[in-house]
């Protein structure tokens, strides 16, 4: 696809709070090209999650535009928004949020079921995704039998199994120790480079920031800084 995968123009989100209101995003204009590995940083309450929510078509802006994969989202019906998410957007959450009663394999397979892919194709893709996150041998395990790091790797496999254009990850390392954090960051960077999936993070975590190739600092709902980090490729320090 030509053009940016995400483009926002004067994106504004205001939460009415009775008498007054909170401006969570204030005229944010950002553009992300295919294959970026970018992160939003900034103090708590600066609007990072709000931005990801809108870009992920889970919420709509108060004003301004968000154009995702060429589609302006504020005009989308819930049905169309769901279609966009189903096709193009993968989510990774702070808490891993796997389906507890399903196996690792079935968890990863779910997005493909929604897309209605044939069984053989699903199987190939699920195993491929599990190999990316190095959990092919745990395909039959249940989420409760996995460590936090393994769970988040399953969540990554589930997010990328449909080869979406965009993966949105809100604080993906917040519940992980350093080793596991680096582990999943490595995997995500690999996926980013090999499959040119755009990764968009919201994070406070220095370890994540170390991996970013683009760091956008939000402050009070505005873009305070937008920098390209040349050092991003350096391997993580051994812990």
């Amino acid at each position, binding site marked *: 696809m030509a053009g940016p995968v995400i483009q926002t123009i004067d994106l504004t989100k205001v939460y009415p709070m009775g008498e007054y209101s909170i401006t969570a995003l204030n005229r944010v204009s950002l553009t992300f090209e295919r294959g970026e590995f970018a992160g939003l940083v900034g103090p708590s309450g600066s609007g990072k*999650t709000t931005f*990801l*929510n809108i870009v*992920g*078509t*889970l*919420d*709509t802006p108060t004003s301004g535009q968000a154009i995702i994969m060429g589609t302006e989202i504020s005009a989308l019906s*819930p*049905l169309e*928004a*769901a*279609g*966009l*998410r*189903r*096709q193009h*957007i993968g*989510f990774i*959450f*702070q*808490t891993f*949020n796997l*389906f507890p*009663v*399903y196996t690792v394999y*079935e968890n990863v*397979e*779910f*997005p493909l*079921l*929604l897309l209605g892919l044939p069984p053989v194709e699903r199987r190939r893709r699920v195993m491929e995704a599990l190999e990316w996150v190095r959990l092919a041998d745990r395909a039959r395990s249940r989420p409760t039998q996995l460590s936090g790091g393994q769970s988040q790797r399953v969540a990554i496999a589930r997010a990328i199994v449909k080869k979406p254009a965009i993966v949105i990850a*809100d*604080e993906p390392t*917040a*519940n992980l120790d350093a080793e596991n954090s680096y582990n999943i960051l490595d995997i995500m960077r690999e996926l980013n480079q090999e499959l040119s999936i755009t990764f968009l993070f919201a994070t406070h975590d220095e370890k994540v920031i170390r991996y970013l190739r683009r760091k956008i600092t939000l402050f009070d709902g505005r873009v305070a800084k937008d920098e390209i980090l040349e050092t991003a490729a350096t391997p993580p320090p051994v812990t």
Partner: protein
Amino acid sequence: MIGFIVKGILRDRSRSLFPALIVAAGAMLTVFFYSYMQGGKNNFIETSARYQTGHLKVMTRAYAAESDLLPNDLALTGAAEVVYSLQAGYPELIWKPRIRFAGLLDVPDENGETRAQGPINGLAVELLADIRNENQNRRNLPEAEILNLEKGLIAGRLPERPREILVGSVLSSSLGINPGDRATIISSTMAGALAIADFTVAGIIRFGVTPLDKTMVIADLEDARQLLDMEDTAGEICGFFPDFFYRPQLAARLARDFNAKVEERAGNAGEDPDFLPLMLTLGEQGGLGDMIAIYDIYAFVLVAVFVAVMSLVLWNAGLMGSLRRYGEIGLRLAMGETHRHLYFSLLGEAVVIGLIGSVIGTALGLAVSFYLQAYGINAEAFTKTSEMMMTNLIRAQVTPVSYVIGFIPGLLATILGTAVAGLGIFRRRTAGLMKEFEA
């Protein structure tokens, strides 16, 4: 996707076991109650048919109009001929001439003075003709069998000779009579004169049907004809389906056919219309049709109540379930599943649960019903004071409907409950999802 749903149900017991158990319980109760009510209904239809109405009954029009009064002066004359023509025209039924009469039973002491006396309802049937095998040439079942006399006999024997009678158990004890005793029947003849004759009590009979036990005296038809001066006459000719299964539609058709033929013939002959024979179905007699209809409405209401109650329970279960599955539902929405799809997948789960629960519940309900079909429940406490023609031992009856009726509440309630509870999905906004998935 169906595989995904089924796996989820099977593995998540709180999603399957609890609702399935409720469904099974509801289906079981429905099947059981339905079968039990059918048993009750059939009990009372069959009892009425055997002792009172037949499945079809032929009387004169005048007799039919006042049949409560047992107006023997309006009885059918030329009974043998009518019986034969019925037998020829409707050979699929067993036709039995009977005479009913009201009267007194007078029990004398050694000196011939009245010792005890009580009102009776006499039923005169072809007891001795059956014994003499006079009815062999036509489709026949002895009256002794139709009236279950052998089974009900608690003392003495069945009549074997003229002038022998059977007396209902309650009546016999209230009058203090025993087999072998002599008793006098006092009634009025067809012409309205005093009818009086001595009989021997051959046996005491317990029908297990309260109104019969209190007043019934059974006599031989020929004896009654002599007593009441009713030569070749019958108050009524009852028709029975040999398997004693009442077929309302077929009965109605036969009656229509018969009555139309009588009408046609009468038009030509110009007979007195009051004395023309009239065929009535069981349902047309004594408001039985209404009672059957009411019974059926009860059964319907019962099932409806079960559906409603179970729907409420399952709706609640559904609400609890979707509360517990709040995370899963949000996640699926985030992954791009549409609200509709999610809703229908929950409904799909409900169908599976409903089916499994209904099958289990129906199996259990049928098991209980079959048991009660074989052994019955003694409902004497309830029927003791009742004037219903119903035996005290009520057996369940499994009908084809018993096999499917449990699925109505089972499936309907599950689907309804889920359909209502699941509507919450459509109100679920996706805006807060990301926050929900923060720790």
